[in-house]
């Protein structure tokens, strides 16, 4: 049960929104529930779903790394919905649950991650827990691993998905607000 009732599939008649929801379901992130809640505000739903999909799937940063970051952020946000979803595309590309757990946990000494990936994971970890650590020196280190375009892609991805997770947390009763 969600506090805002999702529209039924047959109540969503906008072909563009239907196609976006189909793409979400194919990816698995989000599944159809969040889009059907967003569909209460269809203009917003289309913009937000396009951005969710684009930021997660498109670009020059490895989708598997983004998927690990996304799960880590959902746990920081305290959002069980997004934390429980998994990208089918990342799984097909070889990302397993053990690697997600490692990336969402203590990754610093884990040989599964490159130095660049560890910087990206720190970026996601510190952004909302210790943003004062994301300073000029931190970005300078990032530029030794990634282009400025990739850093903007990562930062925008982190900001957008965390924001939607913070929103999603408030849409359903859980241990935090039952």
């Amino acid at each position, binding site marked *: 049960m969600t*506090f*805002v*009732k999702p529209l039924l599939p047959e109540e969503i008649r906008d072909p563009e929104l239907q196609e976006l929801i189909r793409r979400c379901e194919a990816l698995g992130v989000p599944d159809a529930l969040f889009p059907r*809640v*967003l569909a*209460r*505000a269809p203009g*917003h*739903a289309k913009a*937000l779903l396009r951005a969710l999909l684009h930021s997660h799937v498109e670009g020059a940063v490895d989708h598997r790394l983004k998927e690990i970051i996304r799960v880590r952020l959902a*746990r*920081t*946000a*305290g959002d069980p919905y997004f934390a429980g979803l998994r990208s089918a595309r990342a799984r097909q590309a070889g990302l397993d649950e053990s690697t997600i757990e490692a990336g969402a946990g203590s990754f610093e000494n884990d040989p599964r991650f490159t130095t660049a990936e560890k910087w990206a994971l720190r970026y996601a970890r510190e*952004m*909302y*827990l*210790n*943003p*004062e650590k*994301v*300073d*000029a020196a931190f*970005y300078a280190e990032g530029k030794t691993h990634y282009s400025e375009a990739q850093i903007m892609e990562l*930062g*925008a991805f*982190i*900001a*957008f*998905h*965390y*924001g*939607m*997770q*913070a*929103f*999603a*947390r*408030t*849409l359903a*009763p859980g241990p*935090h*607000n*039952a």
Partner: protein
Amino acid sequence: MALNPDQIDAAFHGELRRHYSEEEIVELGAFIGFNIGYHTFFGTLKFYPMFSPDGRLVSQEESARIYGGAPASLEKGKGKRGK
């Protein structure tokens, strides 16, 4: 949503529905979430408004003095999230 998300429970949503349609509640929630995510990110990028409050075009250094301040952690304030 940003500081005490636990308080956004069924009763809170019940009150929201007295004032707003479900479409408006979704619109507001998504807008707030978007801002929660992006403002902290923007804060780490150290850029500031191009104009002073009285409309002068100012350097980023001057703008930082006018508008500056380090981005704040939600964890370290009164807010309760995650874990």
